């Protein structure tokens, strides 16, 4: 056990850190925190142009053919919006009280006003229509990042920071999805290496994540071949041919029983590996630049409880939901009733916040505001969010009770631990039925679920 631990923690061994410092000595000394930030800011200049153009691609498909003018306008308008939010954050105390009290609601309100405006403009309006649609999609990517920027202003943390510092995470050269990996500047700065040794440790930890990411990509390729028997995977000729959940859901109760269960568990492992690989790449690069932040995914398949899985599976998404939904609800609602207080906050974060986040990234809905077309997706996703919230809530309550009970006892036995882990796998595999991006209706998903237990 100690040998395994020694190998996995090799990057923290003093001799390894010293060797790395010796190898990269002059480079480490020159890469001071301001210089490292400057490098990422230079990278952000590319992202300022590239990302909005990438995000607006679905609008180009829906509306008029892309012209360079619309693309240029989207890039400039996005940057202008970020500058406006930055100035608001800097002068936060001078904002009207009504905005100061609910800055995030104002930010999201402004976003939806632009969505509404884009919807009102007819498709035939050429560059104007395409620019507005492109702006909506590009702003969706920036939305939560600007939220962290405003939060920084609200907490009085803008002093001593420059616009270029905030560009690091608003336009991340290290990559990312709509979720800001590494959160905002407050969090990044708190984990920033300030000495050569700390930078060496951070870089070694980053390299470790990049190696793990490469291994996970290899495992995904193996899984694609050996489990799913897909031609793009390795050794697909020997593959088991487990179907994808997405393919089974439209069959409802007609899907083969054993294949259905296999598909669900395999899908869970696939999703975890995929998210971990991508997250490790992003956090790995951040660590190379001296921001030694937590990894996004940390052994969720070994989590002994639902809340622990949720904490380890997609850390920065969970943190975002905590910051913007859980805590604001927790400190304001049902303060005298602990259980109800926790339930309300959990529903606000894992339920409402989770659903809202995915609506903001539903390109088709943003462009059309077609509620009827959204309905099948919304029904399934809402149900998934409800199940997830209730599961996490029950798990949190049980953890609290268990902590009190094991105060005198000790860690759980191995069989108990395995049983708990199996329960966690089963819960998340089952609720994924309503989260999968399949075209299946809500009814078909329910039929599929019931068929797993022999109800057809």
């Amino acid at each position: 056990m100690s040998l395994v631990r020694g190998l996995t923690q090799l990057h923290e061994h003093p001799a390894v850190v010293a060797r790395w410092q010796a190898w990269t000595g002059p480079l480490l000394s020159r890469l001071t925190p301001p210089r490292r930030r400057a490098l990422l800011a230079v990278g952000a200049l590319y992202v300022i142009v590239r990302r909005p153009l990438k995000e607006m691609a679905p609008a180009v498909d829906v509306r008029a053919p892309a012209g360079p003018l619309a693309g240029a306008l989207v890039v400039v308008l996005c940057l202008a919006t970020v500058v406006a939010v930055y100035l608001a954050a800097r002068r936060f105390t001078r904002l009207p009280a009504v905005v100061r009290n609910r800055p995030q609601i104002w930010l999201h309100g402004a976003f939806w006003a632009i969505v509404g405006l884009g919807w009102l403009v007819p498709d035939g309006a050429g560059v104007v229509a395409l620019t507005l649609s492109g702006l909506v999609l590009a702003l969706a990517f920036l939305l939560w990042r600007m939220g962290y920027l405003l939060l920084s202003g609200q907490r009085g943390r803008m002093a001593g920071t420059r616009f270029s510092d905030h560009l690091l995470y608003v336009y991340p050269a290290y990559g990312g999805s709509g979720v800001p990996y590494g959160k905002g500047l407050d969090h990044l700065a708190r984990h920033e290496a300030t000495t050569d040794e700390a930078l060496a440790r951070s870089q070694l930890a980053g390299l470790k994540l990049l190696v793990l990411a490469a291994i996970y990509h290899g495992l995904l390729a193996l899984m694609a071949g050996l489990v799913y028997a897909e031609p793009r995977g390795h050794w697909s000729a020997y593959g088991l041919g487990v179907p994808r959940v997405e393919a089974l859901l439209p069959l409802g109760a007609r899907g083969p029983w054993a294949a259905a269960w296999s598909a669900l568990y395999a899908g869970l492992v696939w999703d975890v590996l995929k998210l971990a690989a991508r997250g490790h790449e992003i956090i790995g690069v951040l660590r190379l630049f001296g921001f030694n932040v937590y990894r996004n995914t940390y052994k969720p398949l070994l989590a002994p409880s639902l809340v622990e899985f949720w904490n380890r599976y997609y850390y920065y998404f969970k943190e975002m939901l905590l910051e913007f939904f859980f805590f604001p609800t927790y400190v304001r609602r049902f303060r005298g009733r602990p259980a109800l207080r926790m339930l309300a906050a959990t529903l606000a974060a894992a339920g409402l916040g989770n659903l809202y986040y995915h609506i903001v990234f539903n390109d088709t809905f943003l462009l059309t505001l077609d509620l009827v077309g959204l309905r099948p997706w919304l029904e399934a996703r809402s149900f998934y969010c409800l199940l997830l919230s209730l599961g996490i809530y029950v798990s949190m309550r049980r953890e609290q009770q268990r902590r009190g009970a094991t105060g005198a006892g000790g860690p759980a036995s191995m069989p108990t631990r395995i049983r708990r882990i199996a329960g966690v796998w089963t819960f998340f595999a089952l609720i994924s039925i309503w989260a999968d991006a399949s075209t299946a209706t809500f009814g078909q998903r329910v039929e599929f679920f019931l068929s797993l237990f022999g109800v057809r």
Partner: protein
Amino acid sequence: MRQRHRERLIEFLRTIQKPDRPLDTVAETDSLVASGLIDSLALLEIVAFLEEQYRIDFAAIGLEPDQLTSVSGILDLIERETR
């Protein structure tokens, strides 16, 4: 005064800490969650403790989770809000 707050806080942390991690080994500035002493869920209990014991109104001042992850961070918050 800080020492008295500290004693009260440590006494409370002992009731929510994980059984296999001695509190004495964690430095005042160490992250309580990262050091494995408490889980992230325990932050909610720290919030409830501060509301109850020190009448800190997080709805008014805003809740910054990073402030509550170390003993020194919590003590700074108590001092600031009870001044």
